[in-house]
């Protein structure tokens, strides 16, 4: 255990110097790209928002079931099968057919080539499940169908969320999928979390629909209230003239005539055509502009608008007009999003945490170093040099991987400092025992190292196991803790068995004959 080849000595020195250099790149600016790495600060240290959004897929499923009811009727109509008693029961629909068509229905739904009910060979499952009870068929989404639907609405929602956040222009946002119905958003250094929250909380489903005055509208009508409650509720047709999908652009503007803030919009070709047609046939009618089920305004059409552009007024402030334009530009979410977890830290609290963490680290470090030096003198010095290099190694590795440092992560580093001396203490205590029966320093040191090895490995593996579990089960800041604790174990073992042992060997060879060495 005491032999070190020249090659090894040089390697240890080079590795140590390398990590000192890497670790110090956090403090200095290097021209070199490789050295210009830095540890990322977690949201709890640099300030920012962590938002976990959950997609509410129920409205999507209900909408799809509604569409499905129409497809089913049409599909079987072509085959001269009359669908009777078609009913929508939330996320399920039921119908019945004449006795002699029952098998045809089942065959159609269970056919692997079915157009009506796509088959996913990979999962050996159809999109829809069909069951029959007392001559009534029930159709609903299969487990796999729901999964597909959730994944696709998650993909769309992620894209929209990304667009909205990019529009606001925060630096380096992190937008990730979680499960199949959640989106995680991390926004470092955000000034106004409330604005982001209100922007992400809106579905931004925009429609232009006529206000009607009778319930007999062939498309059906619904009573909607105004966004600002300024007027009585109005009856609005369910027929959609235009939707947000037809918008090319939207911008906030100041209307020079009325001195009012408005949102101007430009429509695509299809939209412009439809808008032109609707405004020419509907002169004198009220056209309601509906956002997420609330009327923003319902102006009376005075002229045909064929240019494909127009403006929305609705008593906006400049801020609310800017936000509405942003929402319209980035498009509607496929389903409502709910913020189910939020953690926001202001930048000054983050800085306070960094300061407190660094002070705690410095004080803890000094306390441990002084204690160990008093206890072990020369070998204490060796342990302390090792401890300092260990810290460089740990910070160096975090820097190379550009890992994220959190406040609990700093706690993990401090804890590593406290526990890292354990291995050296185990070795030195063992050597002391060996020296009681063994006069030869070299032999005692050698067997001290050998005999303490299993205990050191056992002790570190147990801590490593705890760190690994934390890494996989924990979230955000806690992950940071397990990361520093876990990496700390490896750097500790390296520094004890290479750096400390090298220093010990060099010292012991010079003082071979000295008694009471340790």
């Amino acid at each position, binding site marked *: 255990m005491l032999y070190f080849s020249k090659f090894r000595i040089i390697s240890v020195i080079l590795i140590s110097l390398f990590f000192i250099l890497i670790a110090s790149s956090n403090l200095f600016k290097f021209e070199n790209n490789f050295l210009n790495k830095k540890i990322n600060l977690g949201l*709890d240290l640099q300030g920012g928002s962590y938002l*976990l959004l*959950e997609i509410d897929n129920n409205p999507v499923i209900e909408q799809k079931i509604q569409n499905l009811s129409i497809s089913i009727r049409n599909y079987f109509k072509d085959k001269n099968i009359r669908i009777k008693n078609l009913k929508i029961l939330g996320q399920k629909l039921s119908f019945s057919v004449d006795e002699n068509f029952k098998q045809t229905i089942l065959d159609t739904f269970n056919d692997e080539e079915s157009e009506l009910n796509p088959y996913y060979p990979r999962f050996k499952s159809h999109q829809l499940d069909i069951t029959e009870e007392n001559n009534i068929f029930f159709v609903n989404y299969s487990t796999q169908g729901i999964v597909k639907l959730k994944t696709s609405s998650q993909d769309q929602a992620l894209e929209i969320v990304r667009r909205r956040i990019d529009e606001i222009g925060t630096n380096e946002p992190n937008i990730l999928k979680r499960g199949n119905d959640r989106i995680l958003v991390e926004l470092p250094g955000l000034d106004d*979390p409330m604005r982001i*929250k*209100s922007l992400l*909380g809106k579905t931004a489903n925009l429609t232009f629909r006529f206000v009607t005055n009778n319930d007999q509208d062939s498309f059906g009508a619904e009573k909607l209230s105004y966004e600002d409650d300024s007027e009585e509720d109005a009856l609005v047709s369910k027929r959609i003239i235009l939707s947000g999908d037809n918008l090319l652009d939207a911008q906030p503007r100041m209307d020079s005539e009325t001195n009012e803030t408005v949102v101007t919009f430009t429509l695509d070709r299809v939209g412009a055509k439809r808008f032109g047609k609707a405004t020419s046939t509907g002169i004198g009618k009220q056209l309601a502009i509906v956002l997420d089920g609330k009327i923003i305004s319902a102006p009376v059409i005075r002229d045909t608008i064929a240019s494909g552009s127009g403006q929305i007024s609705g008593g906006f402030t400049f801020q609310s007009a800017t936000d509405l334009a942003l929402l319209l530009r980035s498009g509607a979410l496929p389903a409502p999003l709910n*913020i*189910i*977890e*939020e*953690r*926001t830290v*202001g930048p000054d*609290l983050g800085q*306070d*945490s960094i300061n*407190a*963490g660094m*002070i*705690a*680290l410095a*004080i*803890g470090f000094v*306390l*441990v170093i002084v*204690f160990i030096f008093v*206890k072990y003198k020369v070998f204490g010095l060796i342990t302390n040099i090792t401890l300092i290099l260990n810290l460089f190694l740990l910070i160096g590795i975090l820097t190379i991987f550009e890992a994220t440092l959190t*406040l*609990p992560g700093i*706690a993990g580093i*401090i*804890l590593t*400092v*406290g*526990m890292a*001396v*354990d291995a050296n*203490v*185990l070795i030195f*205590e063992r050597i002391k025992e060996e020296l009681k029966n063994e006069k030869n320093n070299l032999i005692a040191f050698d067997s001290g190292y050998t*005999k303490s090895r*299993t*205990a050191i490995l*056992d*002790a*570190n*593996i*147990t*801590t*490593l*196991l*705890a760190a690994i*579990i*934390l890494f996989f*089960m*924990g979230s955000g*800041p*806690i992950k940071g803790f*397990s990361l520093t604790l876990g990496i700390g174990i490896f750097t500790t073992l390296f520094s004890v068995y290479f750096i400390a042992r090298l220093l010990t060997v060099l010292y012991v060879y010079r003082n071979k004959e000295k008694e009471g060495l340790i």
Partner: protein
Amino acid sequence: MIAFNKYYNQFNILSISLVVISLFLLTFKGLNFGIDFKGGTLIELRSTDSKINVSSLRDNLNSMNLGDVSVKNFGNETDFLIKFEINNNKNIIEEIKSNLDKSFGNTFDFRRVENVGPKVSAELLKSGVIAIAVALTLMLIYIWIRFEWQFSLGAILALFHDVLVTLGLFSLLGLEINLSIIAAVLTIVGYSMNDTVVIFDRVRENLRKYSDIKIYDLTNISINETLSRTLITSITTLLALLSIFFFGGEILKGFSLAMIFGVIFGTYSSIYIANTVLVRLRVSQKTVLREDESS
């Protein structure tokens, strides 16, 4: 040599009573779960006006129908921590802000806002419990592989003791359990195991070496031989933890306190629980040698 073995019985009785008391506390008093596990909202405020105090802030918030609101100072006189239960109002933070601005003028800085919904908190609690269970199981498997079953039992009992008594103390003092406490408990599991394993390693070595010493004395020898290491490591770890506790800021207080309790219990249990299990199971040289032959 210190005669640790003279007090095996007394300390076993003490430990059993501590565990029973802890179980009692955990069952009847329960744990003070923070918003991570209970759901709800937490706001950390800093006021620039030193005249504002906890009671004026509480009166103001109570008028907002937030349900059960807790307001207390956080670290110093001008920092406050506000907590309330799950609220369905999406704009609650904005409303609180405007309400505070109206009553006190624009004197508050919202330093931290945490909001955990009921679904997430239930998931966090579940994954916390699973994490601890997985950790205990993995430790059990690890020590099962490394040692004879008598040793495994001793180590695991010591582990349960440390976790239960630490949680019991948290229940007794009404300290908050949040995500970082789970991290602390898992680290305690690692630390307690680490301490026990080092002593067990020595016990096994001594069992092979001496055939004529009874386990009662042999454990005592082993404890003494490893004692200075046990103490030095506990002291350096405690120095680091105390430094986090006193200087690491308010947020890390609970975490470091749990760890401090845990390290003390862990050191105690590896001497007085893990070893006494070996004595009570009459471990002898045969236990170790039989294992050597079969492997």
